[in-house]
């Protein structure tokens, strides 16, 4: 074998042996380091997984949503606004939507009631059991699994909610959405638009918002701008904006969590620096002897580098693996509160972590590189111990 390579392997051997001689100390450093990396990589993988899920699921989200703003708040939008929009060339369809929230005082859950003007027959495939509301019978609903758990109907098909002025409205369950779709449907109670209007007391001339379908997806931005010009009191939300929102929201939440972790990281780095810069007389003597025996300063440094590299690379592998397992098999249990917030109605969802090169690189930059820096730089001073120090 090439002597240069063989020499480096010898130095690696020497470094690993000296790590192993102080195994209790070095294993504990490895474990703490792996823990720090685990926390950071969990955040990165969880963010990646959520962003991916959002991009994937919302690929076919409404192209444009138009909401009316009054005094800085969202208010009901007149259905007649839809007719105004028809003037714009390129809009295929405008659909009024009525939806809102119902807070259940008994369970504390917040349910989303969604009115649909006409049910796409393909929606049947998304049902676990039962059928879609037929539109003519009042009070028929399809429930998401989160709502089913929250209401705890125990086989009953009928239940009642109070309207705002405390009269009761009775609903009949005709079907349930599949558990696989909980990420979208957990808190949904889907009914005909007439039922929603009846429950929320919204008149036929108003809707919650308008969904706009455009003929050519490339023209979304242009048409959104035209809508904003035509209806100045509205807010126009486009599909790319929705997807961007998800990136930003998860990005800032994981950033928020990561910043909290930075203090832990800093503590660890200070510990590593302290450990590396304090040189015992034995270490000093060892380096002096090695140099007398013909080791160069660079050889001593290489040993230190291999030691730090071995610790940090093992910690990186262990930490990232644990992070992946945490997301893939425990659904990011530790960080759910930070990423999702608390909820009474929570979807049971399974996340597939996404390992992106950039994320791993980020983790390396924040953990491995500082560790290498704070352990190898003080070693420079140690390695320049003059060889005659061992002779005195």
């Amino acid at each position, binding site marked *: 074998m090439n002597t240069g390579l063989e020499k480096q*392997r010898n130095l690696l051997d020497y470094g690993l042996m000296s790590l192993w001689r102080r195994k209790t100390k070095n294993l504990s450093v490895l474990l703490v380091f792996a823990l720090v990396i685990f926390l950071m990589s969990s955040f990165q993988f969880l963010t990646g997984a959520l962003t991916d899920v959002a991009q994937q699921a919302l690929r076919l989200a409404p192209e444009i*949503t138009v909401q009316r703003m009054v005094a800085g708040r969202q208010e009901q939008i007149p259905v007649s606004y839809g007719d105004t929009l028809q003037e714009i060339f390129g809009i295929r369809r405008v659909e009024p939507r009525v939806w809102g929230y119902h807070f259940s005082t008994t369970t504390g859950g917040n349910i989303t009631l969604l009115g649909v003007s006409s049910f796409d027959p393909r929606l049947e495939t998304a049902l676990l059991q039962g059928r879609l509301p037929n539109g003519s019978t009042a009070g028929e609903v399809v429930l998401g699994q989160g709502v089913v758990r929250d209401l705890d109907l125990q086989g009953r098909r009928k239940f009642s909610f109070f309207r705002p002025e405390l009269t009761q409205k009775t609903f009949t369950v005709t079907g349930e*959405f599949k558990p696989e779709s909980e990420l979208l449907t*957990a808190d949904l109670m889907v009914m005909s638009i007439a039922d929603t209007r009846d429950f929320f007391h919204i008149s036929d001339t108003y809707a919650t918002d308008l969904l706009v379908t455009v003929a050519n997806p490339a023209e979304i931005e242009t048409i959104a701008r035209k809508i904003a010009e035509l209806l100045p009191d509205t807010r126009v939300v486009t599909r790319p904006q929705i997807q961007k929102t998800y990136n930003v929201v998860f990005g800032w939440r994981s950033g928020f969590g990561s910043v909290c972790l930075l203090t832990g990281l800093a503590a660890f780095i200070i510990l590593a620096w302290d450990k590396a810069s304090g040189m015992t007389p034995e270490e000093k003597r060892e380096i002096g002897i090695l140099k007398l025996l013909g080791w160069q300063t660079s050889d001593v440094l290489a040993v230190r580098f291999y030691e730090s590299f071995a610790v940090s690379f093992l910690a990186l592998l262990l930490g990232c693996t644990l992070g992946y397992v945490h997301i893939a098999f425990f659904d990011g249990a530790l960080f759910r509160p930070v990423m999702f917030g608390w909820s009474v109605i929570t979807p049971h969802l*399974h996340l597939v972590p996404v390992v992106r090169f950039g994320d791993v690189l980020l983790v390396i930059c924040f953990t491995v590189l500082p560790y290498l820096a704070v352990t190898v730089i003080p070693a420079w001073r140690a390695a320049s111990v003059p060889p005659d120090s061992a002779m005195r």
Partner: protein
Amino acid sequence: MRPSSFFLVLLVILALGDGALLFLSSLQVHSTPDQQAEEVLVAGLGLTDLCLATEARYTRHVAITDAIAPFMDHPGALDHFPSGSFYGVAQ
């Protein structure tokens, strides 16, 4: 065995373990999400957001919430996102 060989073997074992892990979870991908159902739901119901947290309009409908979300619907809720994320409802 030389320490460097041992280290190399350890790295290879860990890398293989990670590979197996990635493979296992890629198998799971095929069993869990129902992409077609998702598409049908999103297109058929006109959904704009994921159901991750349901407590307030700005958590349930992140993308189309009010510009100023002043107020959560839960009477015990404390306030806006960061604290709302870390504390539960006051009982």
